[in-house]
């Protein structure tokens, strides 16, 4: 097993792909935290704790859920809205949850407005601008998610979580696999359950900006 750990950055300008460092993806029913395979239960708790501790916990829904391709996508979008509403209810004063879309993957450089969207080709701009210190990707195609997660790990100290509909993301600090409406709702429930059990790192937060 690899000694490498997928930790919040900034790692350096071009961080290695976690897969190339020996990090493997979880099997069905599992997840990973920092590159170490773990049970899904532990991952729900850790993801919820990270959200509740963050100064600006943020959800980044991608094209697979923003656009109503089918009924399943629309249901996932509803679940994501529920997750965001739950997060808003559970955070303490001073924390600022955000819901920022990644509508598509066009490299809209330099037209990106980091206040209203995130782009996979320069996600660090949105992280820096909004001082995001914890985020979750949901509904982003794997290649673009990996690209974004690596850039974020390279240039920011943001904690990244992936709710992947396929086999998970080794480049995230925490990754679920086989994302479904039920899993998104379960994460919301876990956040509700752990509300008040952890203190937000408001005073010590370095706002995701690290270079």
């Amino acid at each position, binding site marked *: 097993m690899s000694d490498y750990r997928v930790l919040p950055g900034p790692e350096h300008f071009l961080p290695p792909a976690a897969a190339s460092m020996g990090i493997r993806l979880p099997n069905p029913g599992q997840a990973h935290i920092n590159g170490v395979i773990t049970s899904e239960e532990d991952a729900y708790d850790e993801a919820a704790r990270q959200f509740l501790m963050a100064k600006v916990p943020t959800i980044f829904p991608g094209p697979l859920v923003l656009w*109503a391709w089918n009924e399943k996508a629309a249901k996932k*979008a509803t679940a*994501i*809205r529920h997750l965001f509403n739950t997060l808003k209810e559970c955070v303490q004063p001073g924390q600022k949850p955000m819901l920022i*879309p990644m*509508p598509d993957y066009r490299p*809209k450089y*330099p037209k990106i407005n980091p206040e209203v969207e995130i782009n996979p080709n320069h996600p660090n701009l949105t992280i820096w601008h909004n001082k995001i210190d914890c985020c979750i990707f949901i509904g982003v195609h794997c290649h673009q998610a990996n690209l974004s997660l690596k850039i974020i790990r390279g240039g920011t100290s943001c904690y990244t979580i992936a709710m992947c509909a396929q086999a998970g993301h080794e480049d995230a600090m925490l990754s679920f696999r086989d994302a479904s409406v039920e899993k998104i709702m379960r994460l919301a429930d876990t956040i509700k359950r752990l509300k008040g059990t952890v203190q937000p790192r408001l005073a010590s937060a370095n706002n995701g900006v690290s270079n």
Partner: protein
Amino acid sequence: MSKERIQISEALYDIMPSDYQDLVKSATYGKEDRGWKDIGTSKELIEQHSLCAGCPESMAFRYILASLPNPEDTVMVGSTGCTSLVFPMVAVHNIHSLFGNQNAIASGLKRALSVRFPGRVKDVVVLAGDGATVDIGLDMTLQAWFRQEKFTTICFDNELYANTGGQESGLMQKGFVAKMAPVGKLFDKVRLPEIARESGCHYVVNCTVSKPSLVEKVIRNAVHIAREIGPTYLQLYTPCILEIGKNSMEGLQEMRDSEKPTERFAYKEYISEPAKQLLTELAAKDKERKAAAKQLAAQAQAN
């Protein structure tokens, strides 16, 4: 085929940037008689572009995107050049190919789309600069025409390599001196429209983009003919105002000057016999459709 396939999830609608909301609300996907007149009253399929101020290429892009008959089922293939700076802002599927490779990519794409979507009309439109079309990609351009591949090739002819500082291209006019071509071009502008005709293109037009109605007409003709019969080619003059020493507001006049009857961009058109027949049929159908719509409107008014 319409905007039904392009819907934002209701639960997340409010967080979508306004340009996407506008695309869904008022873009002309699926509109049968879409055209340049929609510009200003509906959302264009091009967002802010990153071309130079006053660049005629941006006008050409706007007119072309407004005129494509089937944008939701069109894939555009681009290549290296100023055009590749615009495609990220275009709300039509597009592929950026290797420099010069665009017609080869489009050939494979068109065939694959025909196999993957046998019952659906899928248009492929190549849009590249003169360097990609005539110099670096001439082989791929011609081979696609020889093979009678059913897609449209549009060349934005600015008569030099613009975004690398003004090097000589095959479509540059004889004697022209550019920043990176100080000796002046020693041979004539390559006569690609004539070559296209001889290579099997069924519809060839050489013109400027000074008149939006003309651009609309040639784009629609080219796409319809390519869909049904075979390759089509449009060579559109989009002068690089920076490289020819003009100001931002002088692009339009430059095109008007260059399309006079004795000039190199005087309107030139070639239509093959099968293509002529198709255009006649399409015109008849269009007339029929308009008459029916008029009749319906009259009936509605009477009731």
